């Protein structure tokens, strides 16, 4: 099947700074694909190259089998996009903005339908200046879907939103998956990428350093699960060392040490052994936390902890 987006050897420099270096990747049809990386990693530049907002120095970009560099207008008919920064005129209303953008596409959604789909009914005829941050983002998202695109590109769609607005937007993005659209988005929120994406690409200093599903990336990570346990009285180091799977332990709980952080290579066996140990020492369990490796750990590992 033709990939929704295919990049081959994409490079872009600004003077001496290489923003994107020889990136090749395919995004499959119907995928939700995340671009993650530290600030200045080259995510936005990469997306701008795909959208024709900047001209790559080298490489090929194919959108739904169309060469996006030589047939950009044809490609843009099939791409919807939401940019990091693009305000609308203060006096323009969402309905006017949607109608204006729709008028330029050969195939376009009905503005009324988009207003409903992106929950803008109450503000459909309000001036852009009066919209809240969340409403503006919903409008930007609606504009990205105005041409019923096969490929949607969202650049940091949840940046600057409060948690409820972010959750709303996640639901809206998730709902597009059922419509069979391919969605590519960049984000700083790794939990967001973890929850929404089928696959993620980790970019650092313009280089593609990892590309896989979040689960596979985590599984490949050198990070191990951690168990934080607090008891009264505290367990002894020597006792804990006997637990199966424990590879490292560090005190947890600050100055009045009452707990331990255990790094384990066998999470289930460690927890299973913890219960009898607490009983045998006549201690009371105060708190038990389990931390599995996440994309944050992968991110920190691959980027050296830069954000």
């Amino acid at each position, binding site marked *: 099947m033709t990939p929704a987006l295919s990049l081959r050897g994409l490079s872009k420099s600004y003077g001496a700074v290489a923003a994107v270096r020889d990136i090749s990747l395919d995004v499959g049809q119907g995928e939700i694909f995340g671009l993650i990386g530290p600030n200045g990693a080259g995510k936005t530049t990469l997306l701008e190259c795909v*959208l024709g*907002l900047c001209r790559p120095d080298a490489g090929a970009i194919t959108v739904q089998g169309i060469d996006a560099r030589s047939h950009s*207008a*044809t490609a843009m008919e099939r791409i919807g996009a939401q940019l990091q920064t*693009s305000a609308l005129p203060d*006096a323009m209303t969402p309905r006017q903005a949607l109608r204006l953008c729709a*008028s*330029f*596409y*050969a195939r376009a959604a009905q503005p009324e339908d988009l207003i409903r789909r992106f929950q803008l009914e109450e503000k459909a005829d309000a001036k852009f200046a009066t919209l809240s941050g969340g409403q503006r983002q919903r409008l930007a998202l609606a504009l990205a879907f105005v041409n019923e695109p096969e490929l949607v590109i969202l650049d940091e769609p949840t940046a600057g939103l409060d948690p409820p607005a972010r959750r709303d937007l996640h639901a809206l993005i998730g709902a597009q998956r059922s419509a069979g659209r391919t969605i590519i988005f960049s984000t700083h929120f790794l939990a967001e990428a973890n929850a929404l994406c089928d696959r993620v690409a980790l970019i650092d200093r313009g280089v593609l350093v990892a590309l896989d599903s979040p689960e596979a990336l985590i599984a490949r990570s050198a990070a191990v699960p951690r168990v934080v346990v607090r008891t009264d009285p505290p367990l002894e180091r020597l006792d804990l060392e006997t637990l199966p799977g424990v590879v490292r332990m560090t005190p947890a709980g600050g100055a009045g040490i009452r707990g331990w952080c255990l790094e384990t290579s066998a999470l289930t066996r460690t927890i299973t052994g913890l219960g009898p140990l607490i009983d045998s020492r006549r201690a009371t369990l105060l708190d038990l936390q389990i931390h599995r490796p996440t994309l944050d750990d992968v991110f920190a590992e691959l980027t050296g902890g830069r954000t």
Partner: protein
Amino acid sequence: MKRVRAFLYHFQLTLRLNFANKQPLVYGYLVPFFFLIAFGTIFRSGTPPLLHQMSQLVTISALGGACFGLPTALVAERERGWWRRYRLLPRALPSLLAGTLLVRVVLIASAAAMQILLAHLIYGTPWPAHWAHLAVGYAGVAWAFLGLGLLLAALAGDVPAVQALGQCIFLPLIMIGGVGVPLQALPAWTQRLAAFLPGRYAVDALGAGFTGDGRGAVFRFNLAALALIGLGAGLAGTKLFRWDSGRRIGPAARIWVVAALVPWVAIGLFALRTQRWPALAPGLADPAEAIASAQIDAIAYEGLPPDDGTVTPLAPPVQDFSPEEKERLNQLAARLELWAPGRVSPASQAMRSLISVAAVADASEDPLEGGIARLVFNHLCAHFKQDELEKGLASIVLYPAAGHVLTVMPELDLPDPIDAGIVRERDAIYAEKFLGRIRGRIND
């Protein structure tokens, strides 16, 4: 069809948004209104009131709308990221840009219409004499100035830079380009420099519509000048147009700016070398000097009104006047000796002003009109060398619309204002009558 609908929707939406915003309304209509009041305060006693300044007034408003209004709007929109968003729409930028420019044309043209209407209502300024010329001339002015506005928008990095760059065009055109300050009031080098600026071509193109002066070949030349200036600036502005504020202008931009200025230089050189530059004014080296003998020889002296008729009468060299009439003529002769407009440089302008005395006396049906014309003729013969006089008079015959004419002379007891067009027409006839006599082609 889809594309046309998109263009029309963007056009009407942009127009509505402009009218929903206070700032464009203030700059678009209130400022032109203040200019009208300022001009009206100074020129309301003109004849007819304000008519000869209307082309300047409308040019200033169009220039303001184009040099500040358009680029300020475009750069502000670019800074807010609208054009970056628009860039994502397929094949939309030319249509969006054309719509934006068309909206600006509507805004500045409606401001001009407002000025014409209010000038008529407040000061009694006559309606434009030739609406078709005014419409075509205005189209040329809008084309040229909006082209400049587009170029300014491309060059300016932010809104404050628009103000700085806009002033670089606005002020020179107003002060030394013949738009705000009459060319006649400027030193010679400035007048020559003004030929290289678009301002005067705009004023004269509009003037053809308001007063009827400078139609025909002059109008076509002015229009061609504006078209070329607009084309050069518009091409450069389109080429350098920045839809993204993060996109910097490269060194190649200098080449495009130079390309945009090439028409200015070419038109200026052409105008000066072909005598098409209308600034036959004091201070400039006398354009009459360029009149060739063949041009003077070709003047036919045919179809001139009779000397004893009602139009351009000329008293015979010897005529008996009553003592009162003699007294008045003597006083007038004495005043002419000291009369400043008759002593300016270049000589051809002084001659034009002196002949205007005869023309005004004739048009106002002064009882001594023939005698005054004879007095002017004698004054000319006494104060100018024959060669100089022949060329000066020939220049008035050949270029009646050039230079500056006086329409009222209370200091010479000729207080009734006369329409400038009539004065020019009679100037040309008197000049031909005088020239014929000097060259022996008409018996005196």
